[in-house]
């Protein structure tokens, strides 16, 4: 009988080789902006960090606790809108606005939790979507507060000072790179801490079999709510960060169902319930999304001679592939769920377990 270490088991610690590699990667990440000047490259990295934060955060409630929220845009949007509104109307710097955003997200998470976590069945999924939709519609309709469909545009981010020293004026992408990297690392750390704690064991028990978990002394509502709160907080951070980085938000960009689906996708593509799953998922989705958006894929198809740029197919591809990312997401979801429900990481694990046999 093959033994497979459970995801939770790591008492012996990490091997020195892995630690060395990890440090090398970390060093490379921190030094990246010193060697790479291209703003586009920095932008891609920032998107990767953002996606990682969203995925790791969702993983805590979806992957570990097994409660699939398809409405995480609610928390993302809460962070984004709170930060932007406070900055634009009260000149409150985003580093405080972020905290306010987290508080709003926590309140929303507590409300959803209070309504759903005592229920059995698919209600949490549905309620999570409903709440996100309520918030999106509220953002559209409360024009005084949110500018409605026009969205909020930042004029400039205040300079960040400690005492008299200016740390950054946010005029290049570099400070955003480091902020994104830091938040991403914090989120990964938080996930690791959850996994290696009583909370993590209890969440996984809830995911595997709620009734059994309940009978072993686990209060379902409290633990699910805790997981959702942590998840909401980090997702809100991602939203605040996104808002300040991009400089413009409106209901479709931060509160729409697509955002929620994308967040779920990041996790299921990489591997649900694992620390590195969301990272892998981001590494797949972000480049794919960018390649589609910038017509890279169409260019590749033409260069490879698979279709001529002038042909009907070529023109169709050029015009539409850029907008096709939602379609690709849909296909990805279906393919992954049907054939790789444990994501890339799970599939790799199966391959290597197979190789180890005999």
């Amino acid at each position, binding site marked *: 009988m093959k033994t*497979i270490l*459970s*995801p939770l088991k790591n008492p012996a610690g990490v091997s020195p080789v892995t630690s060395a590699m990890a440090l090398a990667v970390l060093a490379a990440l921190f030094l990246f902006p010193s060697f790479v000047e291209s703003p586009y490259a920095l932008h891609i990295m920032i998107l990767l960090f953002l996606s990682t934060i969203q995925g790791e955060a969702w993983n805590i409630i979806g992957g570990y606790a097994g409660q699939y929220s398809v409405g995480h845009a609610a928390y993302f949007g809460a962070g984004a809108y709170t930060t932007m509104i406070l900055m634009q109307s009260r000149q409150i710097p985003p580093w405080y606005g972020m905290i306010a955003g987290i508080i709003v997200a926590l309140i929303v998470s507590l409300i959803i939790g209070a309504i759903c976590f005592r229920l059995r069945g698919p209600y949490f999924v549905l309620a999570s979507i409903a709440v996100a939709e309520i918030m999106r519609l509220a953002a559209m309709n409360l024009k005084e507060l949110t500018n409605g469909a026009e969205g909020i545009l930042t004029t400039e981010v205040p300079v960040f000072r400690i005492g008299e020293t200016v740390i950054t004026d946010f005029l290049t992408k570099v400070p955003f790179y480091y902020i994104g990297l830091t938040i991403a690392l914090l989120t990964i750390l938080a996930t690791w801490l959850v996994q290696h704690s009583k909370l993590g064991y209890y969440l*996984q028990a809830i995911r595997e079999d709620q009734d059994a978990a309940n009978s*072993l002394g686990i209060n379902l509502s409290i633990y699910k709510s805790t997981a959702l709160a942590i998840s909401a907080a980090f997702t809100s951070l991602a939203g605040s960060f996104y808002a300040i980085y991009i400089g413009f938000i409106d209901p479709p960009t931060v509160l729409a169902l697509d955002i929620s689906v994308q967040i779920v996708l990041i996790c299921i593509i990489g591997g649900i319930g694992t620390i590195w799953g969301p990272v892998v998922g981001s590494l797949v989705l972000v480049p794919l999304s960018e390649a589609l958006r910038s017509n890279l894929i169409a260019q590749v198809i033409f260069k490879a001679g698979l279709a001529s740029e002038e042909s009907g197919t070529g023109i169709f591809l050029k015009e539409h592939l850029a907008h096709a990312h939602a379609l690709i997401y849909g296909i990805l979801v279906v393919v992954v769920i049907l054939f790789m429900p444990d994501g890339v990481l799970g599939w790799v694990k199966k391959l290597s377990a197979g190789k180890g046999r005999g």
Partner: protein
Amino acid sequence: MAPILEIRNVSKFFGGLAANSDVSFTMEAGMIMGLIGPNGAGKTTLFNCITGYYPPSRGEVLFKGQSLNGLEPDKVCRLGMVRTWQKVRPLAKLSVLDNVMVGALCRTSSLKVAREIAMEQLRVVNMENKASFVAGGLPIGERKKLEVARALATQPELLLLDEVMGGLNPAESEEIIQLILAIKKGGTVTQMVIEHDMKAIMRISDRIVVLTSGEKLAEGTPEEIVNNPEVVRAYLGDFHA
């Protein structure tokens, strides 16, 4: 000395169906109570009512003198009562060790302490060499032992075993019987055992309660039960002690 468990006139209705009807008995600390009866007699329903999976429609359950009515299963567990399930419920994706640790975490927040308690329980059921196996891949006999180990890790005072020998071969059943007797010998855990294996029940039980069609038909020592003509007629048939 107050009895550790008192079932007082417990009834449970599902729509018009009376799954349990006015059931009463008590249990003293340290004993093993056998709970027998034909399929559908209401044995598992009674377990569910006692542990808070759902509340009884009528009647009271007192554990260590305290009324349990309305308490959720997790609180019941923390008070010291735990059950195993008729259809085994391993936490499939977790390892054997992690499964038992989930039980142990009921009494401690330290993973280190939980791990020690868990390994100890795995030794008790003879599974410590399977600690890193994935629970979902175990054969049925080991799943049952795992479930007992996990329940014991919560350090209960009352252990409810629901057909823990169901589906096991004679060697595995014997292992479970020895386990139950060893637990009794330890002196700290009282047990209630639902079983169809009459030979096993006769060997381990101090007293037996017989349920049929939701009602308590009889209660007594194994000898009394086996010689009770109503019990023989309703359930035991040709069984001879």
